[in-house]
């Protein structure tokens, strides 16, 4: 049994306080859309999006928290094999920036060592014009944390789409070209593809 791999799939997870705009960033990146309070009705809660950087194509599998971050109840499954993470905060909410630090630490503990992390200060549109009094986290603070922890750093707006694609391109260009594909290592059991549904026989007996 061996299944050829489609374009390199990268599991990307989102982390950050509730309401900083994680789901909105995904929606913007995947559908180029922004809707107040709307999440897609998808069973799996991860979206895929291809992203071409130079001559390499990456297929992001983007896992949203599905709200399980609210009471710090993310399951180990969420972090497992994640190759990239966005740690998102809201630049108008200082508390969300403090939380970002926690999530970076959590990633260091739970995720694989070589995970690529981008720190993302969202809702840039709110401070864009002369509305500067809304900004509560300065660019410098964000940059500083990113440097300390060796993270990529962006300020974005899911609402206006400012800098959103850049986050994903930035991560994509840091993904090593030939990261080993674990599935094809012979000593590992082959993965069974359940997405091709077998014909269910009507006389199936199992309960």
């Amino acid at each position, binding site marked *: *049994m061996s299944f050829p791999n489609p374009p390199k799939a990268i599991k990307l997870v989102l982390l950050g306080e509730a309401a900083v705009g994680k789901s909105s960033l995904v929606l913007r990146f995947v559908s180029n859309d922004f809707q107040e309070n709307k999440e897609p009705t998808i069973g799996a809660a991860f979206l895929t*999006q291809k992203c071409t950087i130079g001559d390499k194509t990456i297929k992001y599998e983007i896992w949203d928290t599905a709200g399980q971050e609210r009471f710090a109840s993310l399951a180990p499954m969420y972090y497992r094999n994640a190759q990239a993470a966005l740690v998102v905060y809201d630049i108008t909410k200082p508390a969300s920036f403090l939380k970002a630090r926690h999530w970076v630490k959590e990633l260091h503990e739970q995720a694989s060592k070589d995970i690529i992390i981008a720190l993302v200060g969202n809702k840039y549109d709110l401070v864009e014009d002369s509305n500067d009094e809304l900004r509560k986290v300065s660019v410098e603070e964000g940059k500083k944390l990113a440097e300390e922890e060796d993270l990529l750093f962006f300020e974005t707006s899911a609402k206006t789409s400012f800098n959103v694609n850049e986050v994903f391109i930035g991560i994509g260009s840091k993904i090593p070209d030939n990261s080993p594909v674990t599935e094809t290592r012979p000593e590992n*059991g082959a993965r069974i593809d359940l997405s091709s549904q077998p014909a269910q026989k009507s006389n199936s007996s199992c309960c």
Partner: protein
Amino acid sequence: MSSFHRAERRKSVAERSPSVSYAPDTIPQLAGLEKPQEHNLHIGECDVLVMGTGLVESVVAAALSWQGVDVLHIDNKTCYGDSNSTLTIEQVKSWCQEVNSGRIQHFEDAQVYVTGDIYHPQSKFKSKDYGIDLTPKIMFAQSDLLSLLVKSRVYKYLEFQSLSNFHIFENDSFSTKFANASSKEEIFTDQSLSLLTKRYLMKFLKFVLEDNNDEDKRKTLADNAKVTIYDFLSQKFNLETSQINELIYSIGLCIKPTTKTPEAIARIRRFLVSFNVYGNFPVLVSKYGGPGEISQGFCRSAAVAGTTYKLNTALTDYDPQLKLAKFSDKSSIKINEKLIVAPTQIPKFLQSSYNEITESLKKVNISRLVVIVKKDCKEWMADQECSAMVVFPPESLNSQNKTSIQALIQNGGTGVCPPGQSIWYLTSFEQDSIKAKQDLQCAFEKMESSILRESSDLDDVLDENLSVNKSGTSLVVNSVKLGKSLQNFVPKETLEIICKFGFTQKTYVLNDLSNVINPTDENNVSLRKTKDCEDIIFTNMPSSEISYDGIVKECKTIYQAITGSDDDFFDVDFEDDDEFNPAGFHQQPTTSSSNLKTSDNDMAIASSDDEDNAHPFGADEMEL
């Protein structure tokens, strides 16, 4: 009928439960801030409160949630899975302490031994490199839970691998006569069998695979309802003990010789119909852990549908008049409909109700021994696979075991332990727990000496011995096939053990699952009623069953008790349904390289790579 009227199917998740900001009023100082603030539950009300994140509870939470029910799901532990958890070694240690201090009901007598190895700072492996299941399970390729995983899309969170090798221990050695065949046909065409035996086996195979509605089959089963499968096979089909044993204990995974014919036939049938559904193997195992991993998947699905999750939280009080629940985090929440309570999560004030409900029910003991060894045990596994089953039939061990011992072996390739190691999960169904321990230890020792025999410089030994082997068959094909003469020849090596862990679990689910398959308010915990807790539904402790059979039925029973019907159980139109179009139908042009993105909402991890799957549409019935 329940009076519960569900809200109309909700339109989007966020419309019902928009993200809420929990920014604290005062911003804490940066220094020393390690953890996010523990929030209280800021929810005014919910429809259903589910306590315990075990597999059944998690499936029910997801099923309710996808039908628009507002669910709050909590667990009094800090990790997911409850009685079905997949634990790290550290978690196992503290779990044992909790059990032995009486804080986790229905578990008893936990013992754990861990070598110092994993604590050395230089040690390559750490506690969290291990995922140890409290209820190890295997999944038949044709089974209702697997169908549900596909239907609910939860399979997307999981990785499945195949398991083909079912070894049976008899006459002091392991064998796999037909259970590691590559097709149903091959199962019964072992060259060493006589023509007559083959004919009887074929006849039996035909009987088992016959449509369940077939008149003759129904009649035969009904007539033999009280006949043990052993008698049935020996009298009706003239089979011999060794074939019968393999059919009953290995293929059928029955646990005792008194298993009645209908149950055993149902069990043998599930093995046979599972062949060639996804490939030439009957069984799948999920990577990184079994039921613990699958419950996490359903919890995630439930969360996507709007369920609120909070671990490390217990119910402390409930006022049935006001329907007001109070929690250990000091919050109180109105529960509009029901409370679903796992037996490990029962608060003190509900204990007497639970005792009353379970008073007249038969209690079943399950004893387990889990051993992590420094060997990959490849010798027991089929090529390319990382798991195997070993079964010890009754009376096969020196301890005179009355029931069978079932052992699931998984090595590092399944992600449950580091490479070069494996976890052995041994289960005993013996009701006397002292006897159960002896049986388990005895079976473990047999496995230990077998794997040492198998893996110690085999090539050298065999080169010399193969030449005198007249039968011409290779001695090391697949299984533990070393003859007795070699057993004493091979030098003694010791098996390095990293962790040894044992406990006993209790459940009110009977071993034949009859009170789950046909639940009544007499026999099943979830349907029993008491006066003072109408709103409360207790769930069952996990059954002794090594497969996932019975799980979906349990979930539907509870679902129905809440909503009045299970007709719409996971009846959801996912927006990503288009992925089930035939491969290639939905392909995007790949030439648009000028675009940054190809808008591609196909959610499949491996959507179009099944062309080389030889029999994607399942097993053809064989001609007889």
